[in-house]
């Protein structure tokens, strides 16, 4: 008999127990991301801080790698979370899945320790194999790459086999195809080449086709399931929307890759192709906002988990503004010539990764806590009126938006002074870096970074305590709202 109001793994199915492990590891890595981000940010203001001990390149590397890994952990966890439910079959190969979790997590810990302790190596292949691959975002050494490939193969088998033994839903089909692409793309980042243009060409296959294509579809899948769970939206509605999003996302994102091929030696036709298709990239994100907000509206925002619903809405808007608007602002080659490689990119990166990916992972953390505590009530009238989750949402969002704005100011100044006026020389670079407007931006970034960290602390506290001792059961929206949502949402996509 499952218990209510306490953490009891009997409340979870097999895949969900494994998902909980991924979620916990993700939260720890999220903390590491913020810590090393704060250290790196501080070094802009106090260059001697930790100089020669933990230099900027080390802090920055751990900052971005922790980001990538915690987001991926969140996705892996979310997939395990919904797998049994979607496929209607217990997760196949669960013991192997558990083993892989521990192998992968140990590998991540070893890689981080090597990054922190060894940091760099001699200019030989051995460094690439054992210390650092020296390619942004995918710095993990080659041995870890191979480990990652093996791990994701097991993961992929578990997912595909579970759907095959159970049944494929629309969500399941999109998920399996997307995972295949996502994992396959990683191979494009696993070789060494002297030619830097070819190096960056394939490196962007991994980076861009992850974050601007396959990851976006992945969160589309997670969103579809999340909306069904929290709002009780009908499957036909979310799956139709999912196909629309896949068409728009891949239709714009695959050739939108061209916006990374403006300045790396690649032919001039990429200026046109990249500019055109990347200008289309915000469209699926608008569709996502319409989808989420409309469904929330027709259900009168009646949902079974307020924190999850709030973070899903934050995701819809964050994805649109961070990835869509902030990306579009500097994606055309005519402006990108001046903004490429400035704080503009960092500004866009912060809002996009938070808005598109951090938010939806956090939404699922709340979904997990609700079920883990025995499907407890998580609507309004929570203890303290739910101030912890509300303030965590507010601080994390405001902190990230603040950092984004601060770096945008610095980025504008850099584009103007370093690029347009000074012509990108070393002297021009430092003239821009020393400018009061730039420095101001860096101070504000650090201040808002602290606000983000405060939001994180509150989030951890809230996740650990929400639903504790709660005796009210969750009201199943699927029972309550089927008729309403079916009628109203069907109208939304044109049914009569």
């Amino acid at each position, binding site marked *: 008999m499952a218990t209510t109001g306490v953490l009891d793994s009997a409340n979870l199915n097999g895949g969900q127990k494994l998902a909980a492990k991924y979620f916990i590891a993700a939260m720890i890595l999220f903390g590491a991301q913020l810590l090393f981000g704060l250290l790196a940010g501080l070094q802009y203001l106090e260059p001697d801080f930790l100089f020669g001990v933990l230099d900027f390149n080390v802090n920055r590397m751990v900052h971005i790698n922790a980001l990538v890994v915690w987001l991926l952990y969140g996705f892996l966890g979310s997939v395990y979370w919904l797998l049994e439910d979607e496929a209607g079959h217990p997760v196949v190969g669960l013991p192997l899945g558990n083993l892989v979790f521990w192998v992968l997590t140990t590998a991540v810990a070893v890689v981080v320790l090597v990054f922190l302790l060894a940091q760099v190596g001699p200019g030989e292949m051995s460094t690439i194999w054992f210390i650092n691959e020296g390619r942004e975002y995918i710095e993990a050494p080659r041995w870890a790459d191979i480990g990652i490939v093996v791990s994701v193969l097991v993961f992929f088998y578990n997912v595909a086999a579970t759907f095959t033994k159970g049944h494929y839903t629309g969500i399941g089909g999109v998920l399996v195809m997307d995972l295949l692409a996502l994992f396959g793309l990683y191979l494009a980042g696993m070789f060494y080449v*002297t030619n830097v*243009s070819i190096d960056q060409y394939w490196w962007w296959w991994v980076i861009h086709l992850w974050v601007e294509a396959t990851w976006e579809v992945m969160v589309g899948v997670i969103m579809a399931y999340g909306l069904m769970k929290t709002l009780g939206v009908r499957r036909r509605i979310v799956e139709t929307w999912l196909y629309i999003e896949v068409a728009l996302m891949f239709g714009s994102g695959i050739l939108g890759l061209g916006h990374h091929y403006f300045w790396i030696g690649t032919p001039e036709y990429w200026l046109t192709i990249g500019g055109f298709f990347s200008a289309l990239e915000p469209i699926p994100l608008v569709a996502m906002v319409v989808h989420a907000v409309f469904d929330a509206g027709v259900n009168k925002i009646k949902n079974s988990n307020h924190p999850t619903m709030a973070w899903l809405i934050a995701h819809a808007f964050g994805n649109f503004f961070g990835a869509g608007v902030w990306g579009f602002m500097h994606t055309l080659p005519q402006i990108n010539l001046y903004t490429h490689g400035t704080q503009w990119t960092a500004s866009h990166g912060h809002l996009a990764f938070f808005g598109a990916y951090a938010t939806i992972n956090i939404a699922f953390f709340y979904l997990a806590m609700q079920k883990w505590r025995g499907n407890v009530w998580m609507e309004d009238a929570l203890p303290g009126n739910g101030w912890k989750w509300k303030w965590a949402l507010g601080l994390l969002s405001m902190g990230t938006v603040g950092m984004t704005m601060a770096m945008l100011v610095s980025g504008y100044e850099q584009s103007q002074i370093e690029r347009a006026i000074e012509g990108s020389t070393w002297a021009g670079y430092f003239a821009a870096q020393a400018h009061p407007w730039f420095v101001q931006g860096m101070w504000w970034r650090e201040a808002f970074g602290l606000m983000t960290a405060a939001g994180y602390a509150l989030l951890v506290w809230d996740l650990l305590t929400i639903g504790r001792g709660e005796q009210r059961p969750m009201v199943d929206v699927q029972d309550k709202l089927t008729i309403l949502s079916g009628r109203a949402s069907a109208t939304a996509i044109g049914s009569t």
Partner: protein
Amino acid sequence: MATSPWWASESFWRKTAIWVTGVSLVVLILLTFDSMRQITAGSKRVPAYSAINYRIEYKFDEKRYVQVPVRGIKEPLFGKELSEQEAEALVAKGKMTIQAKNCINCHTLLGNGAYFAPDLTKSWLDPYWGSKETREQLMVDFIKDPSNKLHNALGRRMPNLGVTDEEARGVVAFLKWMSTIDTNGFPYNFKSMQQEN
């Protein structure tokens, strides 16, 4: 149950998603074949590694309206002309070192990387190195032990990364070679060092 119009039906959008993805992918693959051909070392856009045997300039092109790298008179790196194989080996040493020392998490190469230190795309041509006579040695010395050399007024410095003499020469060769790549005018309006005699 009422049937949906075609534009709201699940199967229409499923097919659309598959077709759009497939066509985009095919176009990307075709363009990738062409791009690979155009950026292989030794092509017009990405010159052979032996380009380090020549003076490299970055000149305004009236037709394209941006600056483009131009190969000048023979001016071998470190005063020694290298064969294609020797040049490739030296540049490869530099590229490997740039990865092994994690340069990209402070600097940008071709504008990609981190923003804590200057872009390296045209660093070979940067006026910071004074004159073409002093440049090579200054660069090697700087890369080997930069921490106590003049950087800027901000106090931001490059740490000593334990780069050997051989590695530093490789890095300089790589940087010189990278400055020969046709980057469609990035960085724009770059003010190159004076290289005329």
